[in-house]
């Protein structure tokens, strides 16, 4: 899978990279993957899997492209 971070979630990504390619031998809930990566779930406002909005408990497949977004504010 490809995991992309939007907004300030890039801060929590390994190496502060915008995107990360991961091997997923089997489908896993996104929340578990993010927890393993030490990305705080409380800061995740939106999730998109293959550009379709989803929840943190969505099952992610190896071929998926997942984007997580922080909340967005003004200014």
């Amino acid at each position, binding site marked *: 899978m490809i995991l992309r971070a*939007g907004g300030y979630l*890039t801060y929590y990504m390994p190496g502060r990279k915008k995107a990360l390619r991961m091997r997923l031998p089997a489908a896993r809930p996104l929340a578990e993957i993010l927890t393993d990566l030490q990305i705080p779930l409380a800061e995740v406002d939106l999730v998109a899997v293959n550009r379709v909005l989803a929840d943190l408990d969505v099952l992610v497949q190896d071929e998926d492209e997942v984007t997580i977004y922080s*909340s967005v*504010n003004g*200014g």
Partner: protein
Amino acid sequence: MYGTSAKILRVDLTQREIRTEILPEDFYRLYPGGKALAGYILLNEMKAGVDPFSPENVLVIANGLLTGAPVSTATRYIVSARSPLTLGYGESEAGGFWGPELKMAGFEAVVVKGRASEPLYLWIHDGEAELKSASHLWGRLTAEVQEAIRAELGDEKIRVLQIGPAGEKLVRFAGLTNDLRHFNGRNGLGAVMGSKNLRAVAVRGSQRYQSFAADPEALMALGRKLAKGVKENPISWDLQDKGTLGIVEPMNAGGILPTRNFRQGAFEAVDEVKWDAYEKQLLTARRSCYACAVRCKREVAVNGRVSEYGGPEYETLGAFGPNCGISDLQAIAQANELCNAYMLDSISTGATISFAMECFEHGLLTLKDTGGIDLRFGNAQAMLAMVEMIARREGLGDLLAEGSRRAAEKIGGDAAFFAMQVKGQELAMHEPRGKYNVGMGYAISEIGADHLVVAHDTALVNPESLQFKGATALGITKALPARSFGREKMEHFYTLERWNSLEKVIGYCFFGPTPRSYIAVEDVITSINAASGWSLSVEDALLIGERATNMARIFNLREGFTRKDDTLPERLFQGLENGSLQGCALPRDEFEESLSILYALKGWDPQTGIPTSEKLRALSLDWAAVMLPQG
């Protein structure tokens, strides 16, 4: 008195007289700069009903208590007058270097009255001030004027605050710029300055803020802590990394990216305008305001050359990009340059062009009206042509220079529906149908649709998030959905509005304090007390913010504003056409009910929105009671 020189420079352009006034400490404690000082002066030194373009309008430029302090993001000053766009209390704040330089020159504020018989500029330097001819500067672009003033006065480090040709032409949303990159964009205050024949205020000073501070060591220690802390907080780190542009993609995903005049919440070409594209196509460097560790400013290349006007920020990109249906980043950057060279508010300019595009697509404006320009959504060249026509008041630009509300009245038909404005000021690039308190802020703000009234709803939806935890020190205890109204949500609003208003009084940027960014409530209070020698609590500080908001409210009530002006464009009560919030609309009944609740929380009559005598007393604003409408 600490934290301030307490000196105001008073300029009468008609008489060509300048004098200095020193404020007493008991006064300054109630009105410690910025929005509070401006509100007091406007209420007490200008009568109701003054034509914004008459010599009787009073222009106030005011630093906050902390402006120029060695503390990250304490850079802001405000410009205030009766707004020609809204005809109400006018205010626009900016950062940069000009406010701190004014402080170093020995002044907290400049109050300008009258009208000069010929173009002038004001030159302030280390406790002295003089008026100089600006006839040779009139009509010239802002970069030329800055260079000319610095050359004339023989100092490249002079900070120049100025209007541009759009302000001279009295475009109702003309603004001011300092250093060509920092803008008092909103409310048309550049046109007020233009009406006074005042082109610029140049400043140079040699004092240091530490010489004003009660406890300079404590202030310096806090400054060091905040300089380090910016990289340790994901929100401020992100602002440093991407500037304000980092929100484009998440907003699109959330269905709250204003697109095609707020008809839609998602832009199909977002990949062409989001941060990744900006970074690749435009970015050349990152810059900062005075002593600010966040460094959210961006430098860009436009058509192969580095722009002297800085790069578009989110609001500008949103207004000329998705909201005009345009994905050409170079064109957006060019529009940003044009706005800054002529000195137009990029939000109102882009939003007014977006309004005109929708009128054009509905046949309310024709090729004859536009001078043959095909003013459809997505036409970048048409957008650029229209920016220049507005700035010069040429052709259709002369009508659009009046702002979307006045233009709609002239155009007639359904045009009023397409004018996305409140109190005459165009909406910023934030979609209320996904953030209800942003909508409430647009409605109730004294300056018209303003997006900086409160921290946006999305900051307070998760009790475990950093932003929510930051806000708990303000007394916020319960997370609430972004798309909700009601009593608890209005309690959020009431607290956050006082906090944001405090920032506008003391000189902090919206991108400094929590919950929007990284500076803790405790640190904000520490900075105020270290600078001033006072012992303010959080509640004391909130009261200062509330007092300022109430003075602005009283100004509007005195001008005849009523509850019906605290409203929103009709379109927002209808569903979004696309995106993840497709079909979502603001609930009208809940909005009206919540407005009454908010009035009551603020100590205002729940039906009329007029502050009660008890509230005025609590705010030490008894003197303003006679200014309120009777009955």
